């Protein structure tokens, strides 16, 4: 199944839009500044709708079935969120309007800041960052700014566990800091002895540590209190990567665990859609000591103008901001969705989300245990990591298991991450999946393990019934074709 490119279905003279006639006297076009041609496709509206409908049918999505991508939290995206973000009073609002005309939107922003502060245990939140990685950048720059502000500018070392997401080290070097990697111990926790050695060695240069909790193995970092104490003792700050917050909603607040700054992923934990790769939203929360450095503007309540039943909101820049990380205020359309989600669930719902996410992950882990090796066998949080390799089928790799899962109608989990597990399969079912779905998924994994033993070629050649077969990524990288060109 393939669909021709837009450029191949284009026919001269077609256009999907009719514009108003010119209703003012024309002005001469600016001499020498006008383009001669605009090589965009020419299609009718019906062409377009069919094109995109057919393409959509070549996608897998949460709306189709289980999407167990570890650390990505592919939960159901409630439809009410979409409706609310499209309300004209939100969708047609210009960011530079006078605040008197945007109080409803500022109310949403202010409330969401409060909700996230409460959920994370922080003094303040900025909603500006556009995605998790940008929230990280904001957080790390805040840590750097904090040390500079205290007259400690030589601090340039960031500790990062070897199980961390790639964004952690990438963000650190973007911020002009150095990465020191900390190994994991036999139970999947940060190795405390190595951490202590690193803290002592780099004590005067320590910016802090970036930690994901639960970590990318799906395990709650059991020594988290010792870790934060140790880093603080050496003058460092604790950065929390909130990618895995779905396990902590109403269970524990990162601020209470000793984190100084953390980014949330509204597109993971707070049910806003992933959109095929964004837009996300990565608000950053800060303890009181770091709140002055938040990127701005943020929404504040204007006490002077507020009355008992009529709060008044205004945009303010924190006192010592790292600067703005994007134009305007942030992904407001995503704020509306996340706000709607928190209003639907309330405090009790937050906790039920985490409980069922963890219940589902543990249930699935017990269903495949014994067939798929579990490198760190203990109660997991919202996700777990198993190994896609079998002693009696030595040539089968995790990638083959993944591709075969497609034939069973499931999206595969990520392979080969975290890097410290061989042939890793990182599985996060989320709370929105039913027991029946989990049972079917577990059955598929067990059936594939059996196939690996008796007919491994079924795995090597998989997928067999997807829109396309395995694609040649080497050819794509060697002969780069990155846009369509007429022959």
């Amino acid at each position, binding site marked *: 199944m393939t669909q021709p490119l837009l450029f191949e279905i284009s026919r001269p003279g077609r256009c999907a839009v009719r514009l108003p006639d010119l209703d003012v006297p024309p002005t001469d076009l600016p001499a020498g500044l006008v383009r001669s041609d605009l090589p965009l496709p020419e299609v009718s509206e019906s062409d377009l709708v069919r094109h995109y409908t057919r393409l959509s049918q070549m996608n897998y999505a949460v709306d189709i079935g289980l999407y167990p991508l570890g650390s990505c939290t592919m939960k159901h995206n409630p439809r009410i969120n979409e409706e609310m973000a499209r309300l004209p009073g939100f969708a047609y609002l210009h960011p530079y309007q006078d605040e008197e005309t945007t109080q409803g939107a500022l109310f949403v922003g202010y409330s969401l800041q409060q909700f996230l502060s409460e959920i994370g245990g922080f003094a303040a939140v900025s909603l500006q960052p556009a995605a998790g990685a940008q929230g990280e950048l904001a957080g790390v720059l805040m840590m750097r700014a904090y040390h500079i502000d205290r007259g400690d500018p030589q601090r340039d070392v960031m500790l990062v566990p070897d199980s961390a997401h790639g964004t952690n080290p990438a963000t650190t070097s973007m911020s002009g800091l150095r990465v020191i990697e900390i190994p994991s111990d036999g139970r999947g926790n940060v190795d405390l002895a190595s951490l202590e050695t690193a803290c002592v060695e780099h004590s005067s240069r320590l910016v802090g540590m970036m930690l994901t909790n639960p970590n990318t193995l799906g395990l709650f970092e059991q020594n988290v209190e010792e870790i934060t104490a140790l880093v603080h003792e050496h003058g460092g700050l604790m950065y929390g990567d909130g990618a895995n917050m779905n396990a902590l909603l109403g269970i524990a607040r990162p601020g209470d665990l000793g984190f100084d700054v953390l980014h949330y992923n509204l597109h993971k934990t707070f049910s806003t859609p992933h959109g095929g790769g964004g837009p996300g939203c990565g608000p950053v929360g800060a303890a009181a000591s770091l709140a002055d450095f938040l990127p701005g503007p943020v929404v504040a309540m204007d006490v002077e103008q507020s009355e008992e039943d009529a709060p008044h909101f205004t945009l303010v820049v924190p006192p010592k901001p790292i600067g703005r990380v994007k134009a305007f205020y942030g992904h407001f359309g995503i704020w509306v969705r996340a706000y709607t989600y928190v209003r639907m669930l309330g405090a009790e719902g937050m906790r039920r989300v985490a409980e069922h996410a963890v219940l589902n992950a543990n249930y699935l882990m017990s269903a495949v245990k014994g067939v798929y090796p579990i490198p760190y066998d203990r109660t997991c949080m919202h996700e777990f990591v198993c190994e896609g390799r079998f002693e009696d089928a030595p040539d089968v790799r995790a990638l083959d298991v993944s591709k075969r899962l497609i034939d069973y109608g499931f999206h595969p989990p990520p392979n*080969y991450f975290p890097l410290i597990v061989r042939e890793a399969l990182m599985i996060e079912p989320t709370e929105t999946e039913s027991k029946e779905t989990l049972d079917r998924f577990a059955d598929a994994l067990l059936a594939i393990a059996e196939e690996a033993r008796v007919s491994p070629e079924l795995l090597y050649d998989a997928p067999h019934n997807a829109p396309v077969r395995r694609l040649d*990524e*080497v050819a794509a*990288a*060697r002969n780069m074709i990155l846009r369509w060109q007429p022959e």
Partner: protein
Amino acid sequence: MDLIPDARYTESHEWVRWDGDDLVCGITDHAQESLSDVVYVELPDVGDELETGDIWGVVESVKAASDLHMPMGGQITGVNEALEDEPEIVNKDPYGAGWMMRFRPSDPSQYDMLLEGDVYEEFAAQEEG
């Protein structure tokens, strides 16, 4: 793993051999095999002066990228431009047509401190673990 007799090796899997006053440098057969299909080699600028251990380039497959390090300090005197269009030569002939760059070492005597073939072979086997 294939080795060539007249070369020395590094723990970061480069090889070097003399060609006149210059050293020619590439990656070992073992390295190309573990990377699998090489899709890109980033080469240095001729004239760059680099210290021992400095990064002079990157070799990439679809799933991995490895930095390339200077076995000894020196000045880059040539690069293998053929790799720009046909990086797969590195897989086919890592010690010959797949050479990557040449440099004039600032202290030629350091050559003797690099690994000999059998030592490198043992090192690589151990690393494989």
